[in-house]
């Protein structure tokens, strides 16, 4: 991790990595979505609406992974004072918020024909909505802190406190058995038939690569902006 503490070294890796992640991500995400729309059979119970799974599950994973990234960056900043940690945390937030939003909207669209309702104040849905609002709070707080020249410590603490919501989201379907179905994909197996499941790894990996590309692009933008600001300050002082 400290290998990447030097921004010049980080950029040498980030520039080619961005292009690779974008290319692989676009290919896999498009292939997975096309397969999910056209090649898999309808589910015996949910019918055609099961196809929403191929975009809803990756967006839920990335909505949560984004905050996991913020929490990891926050620890790195508070404990090791890693120079790129605050930038990495800020870079994760817009991507995580977007995928949390996509998860909420696609889940709601899936719920209408399947459950008969757009929304239910169920444990999983509510904790995911809270995650979305936590993202908005983080974006506002980190932006304000940066504007005032802060070191990002307040937003790092906020990022760590907000991580409490991650296990709540994960276990919500076990703790409050309401409308959202229980865990259908775990580390040890799945309850989904393989004829329906196979496009899901494509969209999972594809959207994850796109997420990583966005984070790298945001970090590169912020590093470039910091360089411009430092240069302008030096010019003004001279």
């Amino acid at each position, binding site marked *: 991790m400290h290998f990447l503490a030097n921004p010049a070294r980080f950029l040498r890796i980030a520039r080619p990595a961005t292009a690779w992640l974008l290319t692989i991500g676009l290919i896999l995400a498009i292939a997975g979505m096309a397969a999910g729309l056209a090649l898999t059979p309808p589910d015996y119970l949910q019918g055609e609406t099961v196809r929403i799974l191929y975009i809803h599950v990756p967006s839920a994973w990335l909505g949560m992974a984004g905050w996991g990234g913020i929490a990891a960056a926050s620890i790195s900043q508070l404990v090791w004072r890693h120079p790129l940690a605050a930038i990495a945390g800020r870079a994760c937030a817009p991507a995580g918020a977007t995928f949390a939003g996509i998860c909420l909207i696609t889940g709601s669209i899936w719920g209408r024909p399947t459950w008969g309702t757009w929304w239910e104040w169920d444990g999983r849905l509510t904790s995911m909505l809270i995650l979305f609002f936590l993202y908005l709070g983080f974006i506002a707080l980190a932006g304000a802190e940066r504007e005032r020249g802060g070191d990002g410590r307040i937003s790092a603490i906020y990022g760590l406190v907000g991580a409490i919501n991650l296990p709540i989201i994960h276990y919500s379907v076990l703790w409050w058995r309401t409308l959202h179905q229980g865990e259908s994909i775990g580390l040890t197996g799945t309850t989904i038939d393989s004829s329906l499941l196979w496009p899901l790894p494509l969209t999972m990996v594809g959207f994850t690569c796109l997420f990583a590309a966005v984070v790298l*692009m945001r970090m590169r933008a912020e590093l470039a902006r910091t360089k411009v600001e430092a240069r302008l300050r030096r010019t003004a002082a001279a």
Partner: protein
Amino acid sequence: MNPWPFVLGAYATAVLGTGGLLLWAFASMRGAEAAADSLKRR
């Protein structure tokens, strides 16, 4: 109830959301790096 409008609506949300995010991140990166490069050349 015809499920296809829901399925296509969900896919459109994902494609537009992800596409918009990628375009915004790419444009802001290009803009910031171009500004840094032009300042360096000055």
